[in-house]
């Protein structure tokens, strides 16, 4: 567990460092995720070495963003004022996204 946690934080800090060093428009944790995927794919790293910590983190991922959801209360007025455009845009955009993605795969006969 400790080893796998070390790997996760190791990739996180490398991602943050690369993002900071080159001033990239991509967050360090996203770079860390990409680098970890590449390392696993090139077999520079065993799945068993990272799996214990990553499984636990993924399992409780939803808990970690609860504080951000609570922060919505600060912006309640903004949401209340523009709830209609937000609702319309989000629903139609989601339907379009579902449709475009599914249609391409359906047409390819997969």
């Amino acid at each position, binding site marked *: 567990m400790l080893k796998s*946690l070390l790997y996760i934080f190791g*990739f996180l800090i490398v991602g943050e460092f690369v993002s900071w060093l080159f001033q990239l*428009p*991509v*967050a*360090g*944790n*996203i770079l*860390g*995720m*990409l*680098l*970890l*995927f590449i390392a696993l794919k090139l077999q520079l790293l065993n*799945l068993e070495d*990272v799996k214990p*910590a*990553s499984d636990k*983190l*993924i399992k*409780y*991922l*939803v*808990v*970690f*963003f*609860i*504080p*951000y*959801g*609570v*922060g*919505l*209360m*600060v*912006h309640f007025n*903004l*949401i209340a004022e*523009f709830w*209609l*455009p*937000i609702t*319309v*845009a*989000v629903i139609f*955009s*989601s*339907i*379009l*996204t*579902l*449709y*475009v*993605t*599914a*249609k*391409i*795969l*359906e047409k390819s006969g*997969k």
Partner: protein
Amino acid sequence: MMQQFFQLPVFGVFITLIAYFLAVKLRKKWNYVLLNPVLIAIAGIIGFLLIFRIDFETYNVGGKYVSFFLGPSVVALGVFFYEKYEEVKQNLKIFILAVLAGGITGVLSVIGFLLLLKAPEVITRSLAAKSVTTPIAIEITRLLNGIPEITAGIVIAVGIFGNAFGPFILKKSGIKSKIAIGTALGTAAHGIGTARAFEEGKLQGVYSGMAMCLNGIITALITPYLIELIF
């Protein structure tokens, strides 16, 4: 007086954990999609803070310790992605193309609708990444100078929408392929959509999980450029 007590980090941490714990129990009792545990936990905490007149900042002294773990969790998604990738591996070209097209459609269409409906720029910046998993969406919004808290709330709502209506919408559109249904749910409705995909079947679930990760990466890479083109 009490405010000083609530500013102890343990308050924010404890109320977050207990709210989620109770919300999960509630969900087990009544299995209904709107009883999404995260949504219930958030609503419960907001209610508590309002009743006891506690500021969000006071709560977030402890809340920050919880949300800190979003960073390593995003990295852990790399492992999740790899595992799903190993399960299918074959012929991923069409899959990548579909997620790419769906991901770009998601970003452009939500920006387009919001511009058309004259929503303020800060809302557009906060919702551009609305289809992707919350931790990644939060990072994208931060880069775009939007409001991450709005992103978190809307992203959860998008997930619940996809979870509740996604399969119905797809079947009404004449989609039959299991891979297509899974991929669409993961691309449009991230983890909450993926939970529904797994209920539809293992194959749907695996493709949905992969699509969620891939769309997170795609959206993170393209959105800053798309926003810069528009504003």
